[in-house]
């Protein structure tokens, strides 16, 4: 009796549920809307941000899943991707730290929609919000290398972005190797010089014009260092020994006088190489910031400062400890405070 009643109950529930499923399918078929119709009503991201009740990053996740489906649907269908930019913009404004959306969104825009301008704009925005994410400058370099191959300046620009990816301090070894290879193949100095000259001439911002002027001076100083390096080589060939200082080049009649550094630095000899304090200080600042970023990442991850810089490398927060730009000197790291110091320019 009980078994019969139970069976009847289960059967009734199963039939009822099956009817519900059938009815739902009918309704879905009659109300089926395409992504286009749905996305037409996707509100402005600012409005969405205000009225998600603090759930903006969850809404961003859900929209991203819909974006993946929309992209797949368009890829199988019409290849128009009309709503792709709007969806990605909305998601990244709802959750500006969602690195994968900038990354894959940029790839979708460049590779599928063939809109490399939008892809580059998107990834630039991503880099502003996520300066430590190496994947964004790396993907940007890939867009220049793969999607803008016909543009003559693209390889040099790709090399620049690969350098940026390496500068984050978290890029894997293959990116570091790729950056070095591409930098060797392309004259980055020429590209950089053209970029700064353009900025020095055309920028409406006084600060940017001054920055461009300084960078042009630095490139000129680097040229002087290379010329002096050749002079050292010549001195060695003539005297069968290295000069004790750059003054020996003047005394030996190889150069007329020591050149001036317009930025107030000094040239000095380090083995066979000629270095300049302005350029080395610039390198010092960049490298110290790279180390500090790694140390801060370690602290954010573990709650404690790394016991040594090598510990930050082992933890994956720093790819490698960059060498000190001044020969014979080392970084001073305090594990109690996380402070890294490189010291000031040596007395020469």
């Amino acid at each position, binding site marked *: 009796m009980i078994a019969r009643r139970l069976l009847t109950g289960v059967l009734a529930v199963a039939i009822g549920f099956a009817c519900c499923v059938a009815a739902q399918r009918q309704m879905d078929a009659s109300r089926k809307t395409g992504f286009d119709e749905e996305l037409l009503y996707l509100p402005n991201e600012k409005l969405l941000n205000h009225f998600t009740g603090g759930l903006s990053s969850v809404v961003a*996740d859900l929209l991203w899943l819909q974006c993946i489906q929309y992209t797949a649907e368009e890829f199988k269908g019409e290849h128009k991707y009309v709503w792709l930019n709007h969806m990605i913009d909305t998601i990244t404004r709802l959750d500006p730290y969602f690195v*994968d959306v900038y990354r894959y969104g940029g790839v979708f825009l460049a590779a599928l929609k063939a809109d490399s301008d939008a892809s580059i704009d998107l990834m630039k925005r991503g880099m502003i919000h996520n300066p430590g994410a190496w994947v964004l400058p790396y993907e940007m370099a890939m867009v220049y290398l793969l999607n803008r191959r016909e543009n003559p300046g693209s390889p040099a620009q790709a090399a620049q972005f690969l350098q940026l990816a390496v500068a984050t301090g978290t890029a894997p070894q293959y990116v570091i190797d790729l950056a070095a290879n591409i930098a060797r193949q392309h004259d980055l100095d020429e590209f950089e010089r053209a970029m700064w000259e353009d900025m020095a001439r055309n920028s409406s911002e006084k600060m940017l014009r001054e920055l461009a002027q300084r960078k042009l001076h630095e490139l000129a100083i680097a040229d002087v260092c290379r010329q002096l390096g050749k002079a050292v080589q010549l001195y060695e060939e003539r005297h069968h020994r290295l000069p004790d200082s750059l003054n020996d080049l003047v005394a030996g009649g190889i150069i007329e006088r020591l050149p001036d550094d317009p930025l107030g630095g000094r040239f000095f000899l380090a083995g066979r190489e000629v270095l300049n304090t302005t350029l080395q200080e610039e390198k010092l600042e960049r490298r110290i910031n790279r180390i500090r970023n790694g140390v801060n990442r370690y602290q954010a*991850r573990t709650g404690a400062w790394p016991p040594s810089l090598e510990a930050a490398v082992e933890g994956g927060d720093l790819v490698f400890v960059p060498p000190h730009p001044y020969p014979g000197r080392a970084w001073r790291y305090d594990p109690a405070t996380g402070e890294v110091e490189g010291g000031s320019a040596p007395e020469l």
Partner: protein
Amino acid sequence: MRVLAVARNTFREAVRDKVLYVLLLFAAAAIFGSKALGWISIGQDIKIVKDLSLAAVSVFGVLIAIFVGTNLVYKEIDKRTIYTILCRPMHRWEFILGKYLGLAALLALVTAVMVLVAAVYVVVLGGSLDATFFLAGLLIGWQLLLITALAVLLSALTSPILGAIIVFSTYVVGHATTIFTELPPHFDGTATKRVLQAVYYIIPNFSNFDIRAEAANGVPVAPGYILWAMAYGAVYTAVLLIIASLAFQDKDV
């Protein structure tokens, strides 16, 4: 001492509330079910699990604070049990504070358990956690303390349903207060702008406690920011409790 006695009793009473367990069940379902959404992503499953878990902790914590909090004082008045309490040598503010502390302790416990469960789930799924994830949990808990103070204030003044509607509306508007400051330029120098700026500072700004996007994406948050948000929450909570005590002082029960 009397405050603690009321707090202990409130805690015990709230633990027995069935609504708490129903909401916790939904929170657990949301946390464990979040992995299903990750399946249709392209490698962002851990980020989505973190996002949804913290959102579940926040949303269900808010619902618990609203449903239990708005009933706290009202229920005592409605069932007339308040007479047995107030006839004792006890100040009314002590009663309000005790009620608040009892529910606050429960919410702190519930939030800690939910954050811990979410953290274990993330680790089991192969994800990694950093300090920001737990700081996000801390700020969610801090936000719940503020919402509870608002719920206790309204519980002393209105019916539970009206109280719940007001607290929920304040919660939604409290996440969108920047609309009061982002006015078009033609409002510059007008009285409307000044009024809306005042409204911006009066309404509790719940987005101060929202660092969930940073937690899900592993972006560090400055310790100074966390301390400022906690100070803001503590002061605002104290102000609401003072208002609740003053309102309840002269209330005819």
